């Protein structure tokens, strides 16, 4: 059972998802937020539009994309989703493609997502963690490692 304090609850994690292309990857990521009541489907369209408008700047590290759009009426709550892709897809980034891990982020303002995002960033920066998530077959295990990564170090 997840709580609001969980970084990413298991029900918003999908592993080894087959996707056709980057738009499909963002749609799966966005649908997890919508199904959880955190966004309307419009938010998914906004996440896709952001990449179409600004380019694949959301691919923030090799293989990792952080899908998001601005706070708006399409956002009903704050939270994260996470998917890993069965086969990596290109987002058009000339250095960090292809993408295997997509994190979805929605926030009702510019700060309520920060502590969760901080934990995700710290988790991904730790050597070996990205590989472990990509190889994982169990969403509960991934959620548990994301939610207990605090080591008491300032982040």
């Amino acid at each position, binding site marked *: 059972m997840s709580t609001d304090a969980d970084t990413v609850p298991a029900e918003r994690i999908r592993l080894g998802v087959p996707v056709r292309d980057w738009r499909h990857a963002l749609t799966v990521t966005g649908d997890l937020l919508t199904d959880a009541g955190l966004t309307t489907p419009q938010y998914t369209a906004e996440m896709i539009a952001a990449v179409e408008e600004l380019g694949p700047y959301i691919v923030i590290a090799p293989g990792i994309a952080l899908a998001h759009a601005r706070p708006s009426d399409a956002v009903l709550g704050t939270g994260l989703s996470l998917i890993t892709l069965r086969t990596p897809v290109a987002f058009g980034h000339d250095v960090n493609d292809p993408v295997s891990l997509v994190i979805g982020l929605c926030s009702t303002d*510019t700060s309520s997502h920060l502590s969760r*995002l901080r934990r995700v*960033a710290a988790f991904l920066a730790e050597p070996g963690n990205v590989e472990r998530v990509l190889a994982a077959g169990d969403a509960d295990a991934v959620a548990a490692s994301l939610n207990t990564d605090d080591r008491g170090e300032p982040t």
Partner: protein
Amino acid sequence: MKIVCVCGMGLGSSVIAKMTIESVARDLDLDALVETCDVGSVRSVPADVYVTTRELAPNIPSELQDRTIVLTNFIAKPAIAEALEAWVRSAGDPGRG
């Protein structure tokens, strides 16, 4: 020194950049204040150095280009530490304490 992370929306990649850079600045013992802004607001946010992505770098005003660091990886501390240290060395930063 003041570092501003520039992102498309001001709440996603710039936040990750800010968190990583703050951690790197602590490791390097740099006296740095790190903020975020979206690409449309850059001119109204003065800084010693701007950090952004390759996609957004052309949108940084030309007068600020010489103090813009372009990163491709916002999570890996070693690459960011290297870029920050190189900039500090070339800028003769007074912020190192």
